[in-house]
């Protein structure tokens, strides 16, 4: 299949532009684009006059696939969207479906969700600092950051059985109970983490080269950031203290004591500082959630929604029927539509779920925070130097699994 090639497209664009301008196509296979992003830059000398993002190279039809899976199965494909923070995706979707079903999740499940979602935020921001460091030419941060992230992934492995795509939050609670050694591994993590983070923090935020490369680059005013639909750390770096956890608390977030860090200038440096302080705030929440972890069941007791314990299945007829029914057919969800937002590592991750009363979702629309961040790149890149382009992309933190879905 031969389509209008890149060459023709570029020729068309070049034909309509001023004499002293140059069009440069960056990507899609560029190591600094954090996935596959193509940027068509219009340059005047080394200054970017106009940037046009093009994406879709990772499009896998996740929303379509989810419509063909049962409610519980759809969690597994939603994991694959924002692959740096899959638990936030799980959380948003589970909360939306639970709202439609009208079920209450036991407190232990709620607090575990908070704990793990915050750990996930830390691990996602650590990747951000690691790869962001590489983008400005520093090789060391990635080793430090991935070393810390490794501890978090080990916790995920102990808890959920897998390190990256956990699918641990299920509709009605959690997939399985916390492991017996959970307290031990968490205490170990809480003891080691602050010191290791301090090392990374000093290396990045107090490094003069880092500051020179990021300060005053890619500025966005609060009005612009709001108009472009930016959320999360990118919006807060511009000085707008909007955080879904504070404004529309879900999962008992109103019971935790944490602050919402904001920036002043809305440049790349502020985006990094906000994320670093967010790691510290998340760590505070992790500690509180670990210390106050309630006892009790880890998923709701409604046998029409969550699986019965295996021991019961071997003894009881009803339990066996429930098990069979849940595994083969799933459950029906009452008709309706709900918009559930959660604060993921990238911003307001929201799921708009439509149910028609069947055992499969009618529509799962995901509001991808990094989709809007990618389309705010032209505004950030305007009048930047071409050498700073990589920094701007890195600081905006797009994840292309989520942009393209």
């Amino acid at each position, binding site marked *: 299949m031969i*389509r209008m090639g890149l060459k023709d497209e570029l020729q068309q664009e070049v034909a309509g532009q001023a004499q002293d301008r140059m069009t440069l196509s960056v990507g899609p296979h560029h190591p600094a684009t954090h996935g596959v992003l193509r940027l068509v830059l219009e340059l005047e000398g080394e200054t970017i006059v106009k940037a046009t993002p093009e994406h879709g190279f990772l499009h896998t039809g996740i929303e379509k696939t989810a419509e063909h899976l049962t409610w519980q199965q759809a969690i597994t494909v939603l994991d694959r969207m924002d692959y740096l923070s899959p638990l936030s995706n799980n959380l948003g979707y589970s909360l939306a479906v639970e709202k439609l079903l009208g079920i209450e999740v036991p407190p232990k499940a709620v607090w575990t969700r908070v704990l793990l979602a915050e750990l996930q935020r830390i691990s996602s921001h650590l990747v951000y600092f690691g790869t962001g460091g590489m983008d400005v030419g520093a090789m060391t941060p990635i080793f430090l950051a991935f070393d810390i992230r490794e501890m978090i992934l080990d916790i995920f492995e102990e808890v959920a059985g897998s390190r990256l795509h956990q699918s641990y939050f299920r509709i009605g609670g959690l997939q399985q109970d916390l492991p017996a050694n959970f307290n031990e591994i968490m205490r170990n993590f809480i003891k080691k983490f602050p010191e290791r983070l301090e090392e990374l923090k000093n290396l990045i935020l107090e490094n003069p080269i880092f500051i020179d490369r990021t300060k005053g680059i890619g500025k966005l005013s609060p009005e612009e950031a709001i108009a472009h639909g930016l959320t999360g750390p990118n919006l807060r770096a511009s000085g707008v203290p909007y955080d879904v956890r504070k404004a529309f*608390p879900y999962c*008992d977030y109103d019971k935790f004591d944490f602050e919402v860090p904001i920036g002043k200038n809305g440049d790349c440096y502020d985006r990094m500082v906000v994320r670093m302080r967010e790691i510290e705030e998340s760590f505070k929440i992790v500690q509180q959630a670990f210390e106050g972890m309630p006892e009790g069941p880890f998923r709701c007791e409604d046998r029409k929604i969550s699986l019965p314990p295996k021991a019961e299945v071997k003894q009881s007829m009803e339990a066996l029927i429930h098990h069979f029914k849940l595994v083969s057919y799933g459950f029906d969800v009452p008709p309706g539509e709900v918009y559930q937002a959660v604060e993921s590592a990238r911003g307001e991750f929201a799921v*708009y779920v439509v149910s028609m009363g069947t055992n499969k979702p*009618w529509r799962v629309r995901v509001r991808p925070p990094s989709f809007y961040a990618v389309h*705010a790149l032209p505004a950030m890149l305007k009048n930047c130097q071409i050498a700073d382009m990589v920094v701007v992309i890195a600081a905006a933190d797009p994840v292309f699994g989520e942009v393209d879905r």
Partner: protein
Amino acid sequence: MSKGPGWAALEELRREVIPEILKAFPEGVRELPTPFEIPQLQAEPGQIRPLAQWLKARGFNMLLDLSAVDYYPHRQGDGRFEVVYHFFAWPQLWKLRVRVPVGGERPEVDSLSDLWPNANPAEREVWDQFGIRFRGHPNLTRILNPDDFEGHPLRKDFPLRGHRDLITDIPLAERNPYQPIKE
């Protein structure tokens, strides 16, 4: 229910702003009852642009999300699709959902890309996935699928698998009748 400023703001929105909207648009906009927190309105396709302009002037400065839902085969003909808008007002913390039923042979609705810059990519995505056109959009091209993709995958009559043959005996040169072969 957790306590938070946003939930109280949504109550305020329901109490104060929704009656204002219904008064300003007596024809073509109505409130849809919902058991959940975010209030929702239904607007006729012709009303969405004036409504959006009104909302923007009233403080809704962020277009949170723009997407669509296909209700085929439950609804056919004129109301087959619904374009769903989520508006957000900072710092009032109002969230409002507006649902616009569209349909027919050539579903079309007015574009909002001059009001909010992020409507531009979101509308491109809806065009790509559902084939709903946006009147007045500056650059309505595919965004996720390749430019030569046939069909609109999130439509309910688009199959999950096998929308085209993987193995065919038609020679390569004749396979794609939509675009002449270049080079």
